[in-house]
């Protein structure tokens, strides 16, 4: 397979975009990414989205986005892998360009979650889990993650407040991201008092639902000189899966999907965890950050919080996490999130983020997008092209 690169970046702010529909959000991000790359057409468009059918009564987003982006006739398709839909769409673009069938592909992650009331969105998000055996039992998506957190607290004897390190760090970074939804700091005291959503998960453990779209333009690395965008190399974009239902896993606290995904990604990229300069982790819930750090090979089992504390996860720490605010601070427009993560990582590598959050001398970034409770995991490793 030939090497692929990212040559253009686009994103809308993450917000409650009542004034914009799916097509406007998607088209804005895609056209911005095309302008950044300096192209006026692409060979294909991959759209990552989870809930357009349930919440906007609109399927067939592939054709809709290419049509409204002024790309009449271009191939467009929607890829769905729950909250992992965004990175799944990037994966499809990598295959399309890698195969030589296409030279330049646009990827758009787009989601509108605020079209209906919260209860309705909560039900829609639960379609990421097993409809017949998890969701019909009244288990929400937050609830699934709460089951993991409760067991983790029990096994490893943490105090729940120890988890505050992750959302506090995310919010500290999101202040400097103009596209983030929550641009304020939070404190340990606020975390401790935060109201329960699904015990032991509280509001400040949980990434907020939101609307947004992000886009990247993927090209063959051999062609980068044809574009005006600053290129970033995609060393790997690899998928691992696990059982859809949490209860079907022998060891729920070990995310096999993460392990499988990173093993392939590290191998293809020829890197080790210690080579990663910063990590856009899928912090949909604080517990997922912990489990991801462990299964990705950064921390020992049960040691993620101690690891974070010791090595430092801030901008000047040993492993900066969620430098753009993460899902927690930026907001979590589910099918768009995986693309936002890669856009943020690429902007860091390009040296284009606010100086307060710019990591110096960075070279290799990792972004990890997780669908469901770890049933689909896509790990992307990016490298600066000198």
């Amino acid at each position, binding site marked *: 397979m030939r090497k692929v690169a990212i040559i253009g970046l686009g994103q809308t702010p993450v917000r409650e975009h009542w004034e914009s529909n799916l097509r406007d959000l998607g088209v804005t991000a895609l056209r911005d990414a095309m302008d950044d790359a300096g192209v006026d057409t692409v060979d294909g468009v991959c759209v990552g989205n989870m809930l357009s059918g349930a919440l906007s009564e609109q399927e067939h987003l592939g054709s809709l986005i290419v049509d409204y982006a002024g790309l009449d006739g271009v191939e467009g398709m929607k890829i769905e892998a729950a909250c992992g839909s965004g990175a799944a769409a990037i994966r499809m673009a990598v295959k399309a360009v890698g195969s030589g069938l296409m030279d330049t592909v646009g990827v758009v992650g787009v989601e509108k979650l605020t079209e209906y009331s*919260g*209860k*309705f969105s*909560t*039900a829609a998000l*639960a379609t990421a889990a*097993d409809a*017949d*055996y*998890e*969701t*019909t*039992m*009244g*288990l*929400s998506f*937050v*609830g699934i993650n*709460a*089951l*993991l957190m*409760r*067991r983790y607290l*029990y096994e490893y004897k943490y105090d729940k407040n120890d988890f505050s390190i992750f959302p506090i760090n995310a919010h500290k970074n999101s202040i400097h991201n103009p596209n983030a939804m929550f641009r304020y700091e939070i404190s340990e005291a606020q975390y401790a008092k935060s*109201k*329960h*959503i*699904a*015990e*032991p*998960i509280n509001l400040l453990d949980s990434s907020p639902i939101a609307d947004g779209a992000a886009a990247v333009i993927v090209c063959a690395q051999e062609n980068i000189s044809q574009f005006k965008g600053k290129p970033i190399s995609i060393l790997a974009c690899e998928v691992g899966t696990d059982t859809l*239902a*949490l*209860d*079907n896993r022998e060891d*729920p606290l070990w995310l096999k999907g993460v392990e499988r995904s990173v093993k392939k990604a590290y191998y293809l990229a020829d890197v080790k965890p210690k080579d990663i300069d910063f990590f856009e982790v899928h912090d949909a819930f604080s517990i997922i950050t912990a489990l991801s750090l462990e299964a990705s090979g950064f921390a020992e089992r049960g040691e993620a919080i101690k690891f974070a504390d010791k090595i430092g996860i801030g901008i000047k720490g040993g492993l900066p996490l969620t430098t753009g605010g993460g899902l927690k601070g930026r907001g979590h427009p589910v099918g768009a999130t995986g693309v936002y993560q890669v856009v943020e990582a690429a902007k860091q590598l390009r040296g284009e983020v606010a100086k307060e959050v710019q990591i110096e001398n960075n070279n290799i970034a990792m972004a990890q997008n997780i669908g469901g409770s770890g049933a689909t995991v896509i790990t992307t490793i990016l490298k600066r092209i000198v």
Partner: protein
Amino acid sequence: MDIPRYWRLKDQRYRLQGKKCLDCGNLSFPPRLVCPKCKSRNYEKYFFIGKGTVYSHTTIYQAPDRFDHIAPYSVGLIDLEEGVRITAQFTDVPAEELKIGMKVEMVIRQIYEDGPKGPILYGYKFRPVISV
């Protein structure tokens, strides 16, 4: 009002019907057409007894639409005696008394009502084993 699904799942919901692999003996719940251990498609029905221990639990405050009116309620992962884990609501126990490792048993209860005119869904919930 997805009546076919109500009907299709009745043996699972009322009787914990899973499957047993005829080649390697592996037990599955939910039922599976392919054995996750040996990939055999050779199976027979297997009914779980419905006794187990709590692996984890949560109390849900912000619930999906359909369950909103009963929130807060508790849901958990239960390790059945036969070595299979399942997801179920708890009943007949206050949230604060739930503990990992607690012995529980299956009972049939109403799970939800599908709108004022819709069918009522019944199925398994778990309650603490009552010592005699």
